[in-house]
């Protein structure tokens, strides 16, 4: 039978060259990077024949490899950070990154809030820090090509250890200063000790008009009795191709609340790999996507109930205007011993224009017989009756639409516990709707 061999794309060849060049200066153990890259390179960039990337064909969407960003000067970094706007009003401990590199200026490592320790990743990799052993908490994330690329190229990041109830949120600010397209690969590891609690805010901003290629990974290891709040905002520039991964391992009696809001990028893919590692825990994983023009946004989710008696709730809301494409792929896995699992996954999409496309793929993979798992997916346009109701009360059509869209997305945003972060997200929804009108 004829065997089809896939041709290497120029992008794939460029990635090989980029890795060969990067090996020389990237910090830490080259061996593990080479291993990750080799695994990636065996299959190359994922394409539509690869089930997990069926709707996000990176072979097609990634035309080239942008040069990897170098560490900016401190004046450039300071200027970029003062210009960045995302979550500025939110009181938090700032952990800034410019062009994918951690900016330590202005952080008093010895005066951090009680219960927080921060170690720059580049240094840790170079010196072989103990905490590095906690990297890659979710084993099967390693099979993912986007994650493999990050493992190969990760240049900087931080490792954060939380040992108590930390009231001040930790704000990871990722800002790209370069106006020419650059690629970045960052990794953040958050270790949350038993009984600790923390709020992690994560914002990503880059200038418009340049095809930046960020690939960010944040890994959370939540111990027993922990409470972790995670809010992520993708505010990348209009030509960026943003790949991101959240890998999280949840201990017993713990609570994870994570939301990803997509308000930028030409192409984005956010992947969540969550694994329950202790009983009686709960995870609430939400997503909000607002896209227009020719944007493409993919939310991919895998939740493994590796232990019994856990509860997961997923709520993803997508609003599509123009000729944009939204993708939701979710998978709940329940092995045979994970009895009494309760999983509920919902994806709802609103198509505001005739040119938009929504792909929904909510999957269940269940081997235990005493569980409750459900999923739902809807796709449609705004309810005419509701619109009529509002318009009959004197609202112009666009305003009525905006109100309904706000309410629709608000259902996912209202889970955010930090009030000012929530207000910022609502403001970004309003901003998106205003730009639309």
């Amino acid at each position, binding site marked *: 039978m*004829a065997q089809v061999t896939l041709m290497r794309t120029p992008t794939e060849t460029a990635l090989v060259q980029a890795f060969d060049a990067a090996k020389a200066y990237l910090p830490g153990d080259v061996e593990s990077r080479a291993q990750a890259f080799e695994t990636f390179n065996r299959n190359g960039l994922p394409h539509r024949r690869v089930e997990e990337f069926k709707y996000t064909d990176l072979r097609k969407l990634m035309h080239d490899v942008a040069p990897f960003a170098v560490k900016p000067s401190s004046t450039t970094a300071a200027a970029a950070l003062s210009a960045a706007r995302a979550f500025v009003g939110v009181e938090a401990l700032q952990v800034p990154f410019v062009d994918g590199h951690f900016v330590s200026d202005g952080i008093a490592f010895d005066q951090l809030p009680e219960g927080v320790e921060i170690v720059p990743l580049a240094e840790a990799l170079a010196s072989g820090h103990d905490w590095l052993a906690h990297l890659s908490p979710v084993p099967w994330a390693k099979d993912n090509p986007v994650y493999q690329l990050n493992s190969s190229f990760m240049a900087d990041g931080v490792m954060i250890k939380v040992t108590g109830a930390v009231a001040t949120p930790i704000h990871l600010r990722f800002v790209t200063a370069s106006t020419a397209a650059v690629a970045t690969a960052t990794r953040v590891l958050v270790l949350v000790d038993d009984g600790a609690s923390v709020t992690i805010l994560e914002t990503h901003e880059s200038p418009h008009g340049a095809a930046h290629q960020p690939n960010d990974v944040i890994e959370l290891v939540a111990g027993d009795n922990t409470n972790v709040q995670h809010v992520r905002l993708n505010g990348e520039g209009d030509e960026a191709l943003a790949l991101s991964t959240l890998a999280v391992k949840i201990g017993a009696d713990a609570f994870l609340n994570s939301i990803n809001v997509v308000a930028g990028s030409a192409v984005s893919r956010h992947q969540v790999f969550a694994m329950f590692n202790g009983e009686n825990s709960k995870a609430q994983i939400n997503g909000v996507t607002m896209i227009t023009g020719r944007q493409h946004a993919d939310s991919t989710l895998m939740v493994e109930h590796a232990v019994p008696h856990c509860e997961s709730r997923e709520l993803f809301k997508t609003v599509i205007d123009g000729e944009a494409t939204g993708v939701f792929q979710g998978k709940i896995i329940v092995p045979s011993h994970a009895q009494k699992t309760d999983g509920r996954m919902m994806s709802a999409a609103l198509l505001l224009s005739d040119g938009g496309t929504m*792909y929904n793929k909510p999957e269940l993979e269940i081997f235990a*017989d005493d569980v409750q798992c459900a999923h739902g997916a809807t796709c449609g346009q705004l309810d005419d009756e509701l619109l009529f109701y509002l318009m009959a009360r004197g609202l112009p059509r666009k305003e009525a639409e905006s109100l309904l869209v706000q309410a629709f997305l608000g259902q996912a945003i209202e889970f955010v516990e930090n009030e000012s972060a929530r207000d910022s997200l609502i403001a970004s929804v309003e901003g998106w709707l205003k730009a639309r009108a």
Partner: protein
Amino acid sequence: MPAVQETIDQVRLIDVDQYKYGFETDVEMEKAPKGLSEDTIRFISAKKGEPEWMLQWRFDAYKRWLTMTEPNWARVSYDKIDYNDMYYYAGPKNFPSPKSLDEVDPEILRTYEKLGIPLREQEVLAGVEPKNRVAVDAVFDSVSVATTFKAELAKAGVIFMPISEAIREYPDLVRQYLGTVVPVSDNFFATLNSAVFTDGSFVYIPPGVRCPMELSTYFRINEKNTGQFERTLIIADKGSYVSYLEGCTAPMRDENQLHAAVVELIALDDAEIKYSTVQNWYPGDSEGRGGIYNFVTKRGDCRGKNSIITWTQVETGSAITWKYPSCILRGDGSRGEFYSIAVSNGMQQVDSGTKMIHLGRNTTSRVISKGIAAGRSDNTYRGLVSAHRKATNARNFTNCDSLLIGNRCGAHTVPYIESKNASAVFEHEATTSKISEDQLFYCQQRGLSAEEATALIVNGFVKDVLQHLPMEFAVEAQKLISISLEGSVG
């Protein structure tokens, strides 16, 4: 919630070890040379007395098949099939179309008697005329051995005959439609079927005719080492209606046998086709030895305005099921429905579902799927609902429930929902509490619990269609329908 005892008992009744149709019939058979080659195809074509164009069609398919690879995306695993280690044609010896049933080998007739399939019209007609008479086309391995009620159907203008006969008698009609719904190059198994298909049924309902009785085909695999490749083509012309049933069984054997069928349905303006299947191929024993590999491509094309195609399937057999009866909703206002109950037991693997492809305006579809897994089986629902740009006001409702009995089996749901039209409204749900708030409220107000109400509504749904199955099939189906929804997941 774990499954209720009643359900567990009922599923046990249809367990693999209880397979009732596993006997063999001893008749002298004639086979094509083992393996697949142009000679085999020539042999089949000659056996069927086919015209040259048909042979050419088969050759084209064969050539294409040689360049294709077996699909591996389904959630099933099996040993590699050796396509050269089986027979592609097996028919009772001395069997170039007997004139009447008396010429058919009595051993074969006894087989159908044992299976409960009436091949003698007079038996049916002798007593009080039953309400639902059924015309049967009986396919034994690669050959159609008998077709009943042909004359009566002809009076109504309905053509119902083995496809090999139709190729000879109505070549224009066959040529016009064959391969237009499932193209020769559609997929690996459909292409294989196009090259080597042996028999199956051909149905043509003329404009405005309501087919006077149920039509059915009963497929029986008997011979060892033989694959069955049947092809069914049903055309419902403008304003006509037909209900068609399909049943299948096979003897118990340690070896795996391949069954790769293609079914094409075509509904023109205002026509309606109901296609029901009770699939009960030998599922293998409880250790997973033997059983039929069932790789089937079924697709209906709602080509005309306001046409309707309904698929109903009750799947209890086969070691491996790979089957996605689909509807292409091309005509404006057309409607596709899919009702499925798939029960897997022992080591069975089921990967089944449907595709509803909305192309026309105001098209609607409904998918109701219930999967029940027991033993060490795997039961997957895989479905696609898509609306193309021009499918304005398309509407779909999908509900798939799975039930697990024991924790050594698996239930999986893999739905794909793709919408490219803003006015298309798609709902996919696996929660039993969201059927219709109004209906639920109505039932609950009258004293039913939420679960009773849900079961009542969903069962009412499915029953509605299953009641159209003839008696001999309905018994099994009814038994499954009564399985409660309690403890169902996703």
